């Protein structure tokens, strides 16, 4: 039973890790590519670490909590690094496949009309 649960967790974790990298390799522009590694890969590594906690805790050597450190660190740092990467890409004006929103072209157009009335 435990072996079954461990196998499922390991395969699902590895699958999500793979899907995250597949998104990184296949998606269209940088801003969509950012989604794959930051969400899917973090979930995949989280599942693998849960599997590892279960595996080492049930070998009769007491509770194994090394993995919690890695999990905590990864879950805290992944959003921070994604935010910094998005900021850097916006700063460098990296090309996006989405058209710019209409307000972005002239942010003062609305107020100017109202002032003229």
């Amino acid at each position, binding site marked *: 039973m435990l*072996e*079954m649960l*461990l*196998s*499922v967790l*390991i*395969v699902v*974790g*590895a*699958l999500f*890790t*793979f899907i*995250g*990298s*597949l998104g*990184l*390799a296949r998606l269209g522009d*940088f801003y969509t*590519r*950012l989604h*794959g*590694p930051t969400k899917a*890969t*973090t979930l*995949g*590594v989280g599942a*693998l*670490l849960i*599997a*590892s906690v279960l*595996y*080492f805790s049930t*070998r009769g050597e007491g509770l*194994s909590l*090394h*993995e919690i*450190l*890695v999990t905590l*660190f*990864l879950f805290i*740092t*992944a959003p*921070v*690094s994604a935010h*910094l*990467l998005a*900021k*850097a*890409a916006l*700063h*460098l004006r*990296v*090309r996006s496949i989405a058209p710019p929103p209409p307000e972005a072209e002239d942010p003062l157009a609305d107020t100017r009309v109202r002032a003229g009335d």
Partner: protein
Amino acid sequence: MLSIAVSIAFALVSGALLLSLFRLLRGPDKPDRILALDTLYINTIALLVLLGIHLSSSLYFEAALLIAMMGFVGTVALCKYLLRGDIIE
């Protein structure tokens, strides 16, 4: 059964590493390459955890923890360089 699952997981994570390497070599912009490096180190953590399960050794977590910390510092330093043109102002 566990050994089969670990073998499948090794193959999948290795494929993920290859896809990240493809983006690292190909990536048209600098943030793409930094994102590929970020993904590479997270995939390496996954591979180390799998290796720990495969060899029944808990030694590899220290390595995984070190990679997690140093990788984050590296990503932040590269992003700061792109944002400011300097790392420590």
